[in-house]
């Protein structure tokens, strides 16, 4: 603030228009993002009759929580599935960040034969349509005795496949942006490569790791097809939600409630992790 007062009038004016433009752009983009979200959320608090009324009111006339109550009691598997989904998501993040992060670091820091081909090939799994591998993959995990286990390890391993490649690319691009000299200096000062990595590079890479973690969490949290195929008595929240409220026509009020309920934990996770994304340069002291 004091900085602003000291600045000459011209800069003051420029700064003012700059800020105005910034906030206008932010408001416009926020509106584009939030209007659809708003409608989804209000539908969850309306009766069926109101959800299907025309024109749809801008605010629920008869605000109700019935849809949420209905959703939570429609299938006894829903409550346990919440915890299971958290387990899947966290395990997948651990798999993706550890395996993918290591490889991403390697791709960013070293030169070696076959590097470009390897780096591209880790994306093959995302290029090959999932529908073509779903059944053979399910059969593989069933043969390993991992079908429908209470701890959903097969799902985490499965989701790891898509997310490792993604994590490799995101972390590699972040490691590339981190000045290597910092690491070398630390090594000159007596840290091992590992030490330099953990003390210097990793904290600086936090935004990239956080981004990869969000991707992975959301992918694992929301996945339906494999979870349906691979579970039966121990489903994830996404699978059970899909089959209880989303599979039929004419139930938009319940579908919205189920969707809003599912979105809540994911939003909390994102809210927590987002602060690692805007960890500003200089926030880390070296």
């Amino acid at each position, binding site marked *: 603030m004091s900085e602003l007062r000291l600045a000459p009038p011209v800069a003051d004016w420029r700064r003012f228009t700059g800020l105005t433009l910034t906030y206008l752009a932010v408001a416009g983009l926020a509106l584009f993002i939030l209007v659809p979200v708003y409608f989804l959320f209000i539908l969850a608090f309306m009766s*069926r*009759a109101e959800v*299907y*009324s*025309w024109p749809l009111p801008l605010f629920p006339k008869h605000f109700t929580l019935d849809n949420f109550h*209905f*959703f939570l*009691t*429609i*299938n*006894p598997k829903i*409550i*346990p599935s*919440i*915890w*299971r989904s*958290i387990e899947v998501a966290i395990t997948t993040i651990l798999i993706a960040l550890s395996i993918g992060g290591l490889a991403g670091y390697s791709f960013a820091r070293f030169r070696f034969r076959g590097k470009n081909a390897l780096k591209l090939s880790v994306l093959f799994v995302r290029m090959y349509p999932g529908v073509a591998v*779903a*059944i053979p993959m*399910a*059969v593989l995990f*069933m*043969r390993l005795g991992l*079908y*429908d286990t*209470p701890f959903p390890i097969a799902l985490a391993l499965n989701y790891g496949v898509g997310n490792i490649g993604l994590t490799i690319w995101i972390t590699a691009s972040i490691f590339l942006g981190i000045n290597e000299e910092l690491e070398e200096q630390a090594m000159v000062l007596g840290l091992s490569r590992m030490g330099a990595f953990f003390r210097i590079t990793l904290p600086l890479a936090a935004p990239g790791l956080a981004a990869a973690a969000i991707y992975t969490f959301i992918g694992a949290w929301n996945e339906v097809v494999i979870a*349906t*195929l691979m579970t*039966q*008595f121990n489903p994830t929240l996404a699978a059970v939600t899909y*089959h*209880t*409220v989303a*599979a*039929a*026509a*004419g*139930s*938009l009020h*319940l579908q919205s409630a189920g969707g809003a309920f599912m979105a809540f934990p994911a939003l909390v996770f994102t809210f927590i992790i987002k602060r690692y994304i805007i960890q500003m340069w200089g926030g880390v002291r070296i």
Partner: protein
Amino acid sequence: MRKYVAVLLGLALFTLPLWADTTLSVVSRVFSPPEEQRFIREEIIPLFEAENPGVTVDFEILTDSEMLDKLVAQKAAGNVTIDVLITYVSNFERLVEAGVVADLTAELDVVAPDRTLSAGFLAQGQFDGKQYFIPFAGDDYCLIINRAALDYLPAGVSLQEITYEDLVAWLANIHEATGMKAFALPGVRMGLLTYIVGSTILAYGGCFPDVNSEAAQAAWEVWTRIYPYVNDNWVTYKMVNDAMLREETWIAITHVARAGMVYLSDPSKFTLAPVPFGAVDRGSVAGNNSLALAEGAPNRELGLKFIEFMTRPEIQARIAQGVSFNPAVAEAVEFIPPGPARDIIEVANIGMTGRVAFIPGPTAEGGDWGVVKQVFEDAFYYICARGKGVDPVYLDMQQQIINMQYIEPPCP
């Protein structure tokens, strides 16, 4: 934070004993609407569990392709966990071909004693003389109408005797008075369009699945006249339910269970009518949802008991009173008192009094019902949506594709 984790862990442990006793796994494609799922879980399944102490029924909804994929994967891995499935006639042949359903020929007396199962439906569930599928719910087609449309019904037309010509006139009246394109048609691929057009072809004296006979051409011609009053968004309607509930449209010909769901949502706003008459008679395609036992089911005996339970007339009647449902067991109807549930069954039954055709499972190697549906859809898009009109050369070509799915042409 730690407290929440503890609570969640507690919850997870608490729910484990749920599956301590024998669990019978039932997967179904019917009763997918959330209210219907809850009704089955809370009102019907406890009756079975009470009869069989120590048994828990796990009832899950799966789509057709999910069910098939899951059964195929479980079979390949040698680890079947599904016991009973409720599936639709158009999947029968795929399930039998994949070898995932058990032959119940020897168990017929066990699963359906002292009750009358429709011979037609039973025949649909037979392959190479073996009975794999036990009829559970019948279905055919009917009209679902928003009462607001009744003001524009042409003079002298009765809903019970309505014809396709009346329907065209009715829709024209509505369009003239309100500007509304009031007819809903589910245009999304692999939906009900095939059966709706098929029903019209039957009403004009044709056969099903036949797209090129003279009768079929007459039916197509009617559709070219209905089409101008079909809501513009029809092509994105998967079911007509949402469009009818939102009142974007007022009239639809649809599957009785779907129509029933809309009707039950508000009987004062909607009404039902039997499927219209064509030049020859009423016409309706009929299909059935059947019960089957998974091949290698872990609880075979219990699964058979469950099939017997679900075909019991009292149980069928009870289901019909809770959700939109058309019993496949003849004796069930006696148990159903007059009311909305009975209304649905009545229009369904009137539909069955005209020219009815069952869905014939493809017989040729690699033949698939999906291809037949695709032919009907392609033809509808070509004739009506793209405005090419009734083109016999085109229709002959399409009929060839249908015939390729069968060893003997289904419509000689």
